[in-house]
């Protein structure tokens, strides 16, 4: 009798300890980032491109990487939407819940979701070499869109699957064609689509491996799709390998910027999801 209560107590302590450890690790990461990155963070960092001698610790900022990252994300989101919206609509409106094909497609999303971004990057670079493209904004967009496609499609699929069957039937009974029904459904799940976009961008904007070979790196803001584009994760990675302490400090400042962007995206997506929950028709 005593023993089983003792066991219970020990495991309770262990469980609380483990939870505290997870929380503690997060605090440690945040603290280390703030302590090293905050002093180097300045207005100049986010409003100017690297000047002469930037990589020796002289003046300049990371606007090139911030803008490059945002441009790639915007392009990738549009490309990925163009593929995932039709697929999700097809899965949910044209196929039955028990359809073999739908099961197979969903399973393939799950597997694609697990494919490492370095594999996407290597594959993307291979295709680009094959097509004679150089590392560029376009290349980065295409590879990142491959990377976010499964994330986006799965998130959207979950929202679309919850769409009330009665509403679909009501649409059809009013004489709408299936395509017109798609438009009704799309309008209803628009906030869900926005959430899916934010979610996938939040994951992809911090990924370095996919853009490592495909987007290149440059000190200026790209003005055409064929030019290489700098990205924040690579800015962190390259600056961290510099021996100059000021440059390393800037890497941590860039890490701080990137983390803030990701957190803002995550809060936004949660806010959209919450709003959607409130307005849901059912």
């Amino acid at each position, binding site marked *: 009798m005593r023993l089983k*209560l003792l066991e219970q107590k020990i495991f309770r302590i262990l469980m609380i300890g483990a*939870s505290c450890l997870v929380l503690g690790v997060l605090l440690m990461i945040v603290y280390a980032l703030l302590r*090293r990155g905050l002093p180097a963070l300045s207005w100049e960092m986010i409003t100017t491109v690297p000047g002469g001698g930037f990589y020796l610790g002289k003046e300049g900022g990371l606007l090139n990487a911030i803008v490059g990252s945002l441009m790639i994300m915007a392009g990738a989101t549009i490309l990925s939407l163009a593929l995932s919206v039709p697929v999700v609509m097809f899965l949910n409106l044209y196929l039955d819940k028990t359809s073999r094909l739908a099961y197979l497609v969903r*399973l393939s999303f799950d597997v*694609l979701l697990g494919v490492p971004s370095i594999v996407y990057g290597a594959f993307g670079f291979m295709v680009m070499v094959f097509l004679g493209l150089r590392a560029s904004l376009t290349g980065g967009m295409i590879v990142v869109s491959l990377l976010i496609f499964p994330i986006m499609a799965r998130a959207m699929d979950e929202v679309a699957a919850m769409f009330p069957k009665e509403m679909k039937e009501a649409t059809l009974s009013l004489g709408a064609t299936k395509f017109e029904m798609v438009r009704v459904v799309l309008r209803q799940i628009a906030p869900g689509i926005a959430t899916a976009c934010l979610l996938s961008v939040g994951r992809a904007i911090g990924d370095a491996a996919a853009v490592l070979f495909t987007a290149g790196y440059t000190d200026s803001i790209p003005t055409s799709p064929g030019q290489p584009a700098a990205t924040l994760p690579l800015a*962190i990675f390259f600056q961290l390998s510099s021996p100059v302490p000021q440059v390393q400090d800037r890497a941590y400042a860039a890490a701080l910027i990137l983390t803030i962007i990701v*957190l803002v995206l995550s809060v936004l997506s949660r806010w959209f999801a919450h709003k959607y929950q409130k307005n849901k028709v059912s």
Partner: protein
Amino acid sequence: MNRTSVRVFLSRAAGGYMFLATMLALMLLLVIASGLFVKAYPILKQSSLWSLLTGAVWAPIRGFFGFLPFISGTLWVTGIAIVLALPVSLLTGIYLSEYAPSSVRKIAFSALDILSGIPPVVYGAWGVLVVVPFIAEWVAPYFVEYSSGYSVLSAGIVLGIMIIPLLVSLFGEVFSTVPKEIRDSALSLGATSWQTTKKVVLKSSLPGIFAATVLAISRALGETIAVLMVCGNVVQIPASLLDAGYPLPALIANNYGEMASLPGYEAALMLAALILLGIVIVFNTLSRILLLRIGRKYALQP
């Protein structure tokens, strides 16, 4: 053509486009795999897959491509990460889904969300800033004469932290499929809450825990940039926790830009990507099918 037939035509066309897009999405995996295979073929023709996987000599200039150092590096790093992350995530997962009051749960899930949102490269930067010096100054001196801290242990620690949020959220899902009635009946028979957790919840979710772990392993295998930044990148078979390693993804990331000049090098790197892809596909398919089955098994019960 009247209005109705335009509408019907539009619907058909849209349906066709959607079907095409779906097929394209389904083919994506196949296209990636076959693309990598075609590029890796030259090296597979030269020597057998087995001799490549078990060869310990990596000397591209002389034409030796032995993947054993990289495979063992990957196994070391992933192994350490799982060994560190599994107990912590399991305990946290049980606590959050079975015991924690809702206020604690809220805080913990926000913390896990933030942890899962932090980009890999930031984890890498943190590893360089904190974990590597910690290993070099506090851990290594007790065991070896000198270590720079850039080791499979550092990489394992960073990677372990990175997969904790995934593991905890998967475990939470798995535990939530266990019906409440079973728990209640165990409790009503006089079991303590921990006995209920151990003998009912944990026991019935064993397949789910296994599937979740496999999924986390496959995620950990492919992590590139964070591991690359702290693992040391020395081509050797690590003999201890404090040795530097060189996992497969790091091999691809470090060398892919400049490989074209050496014969066989590109093929070797593509083979590395193909090996990664193959392992990940097998692991993912396995665990997803298992997880789906578990979800369905309980969903069917009234």
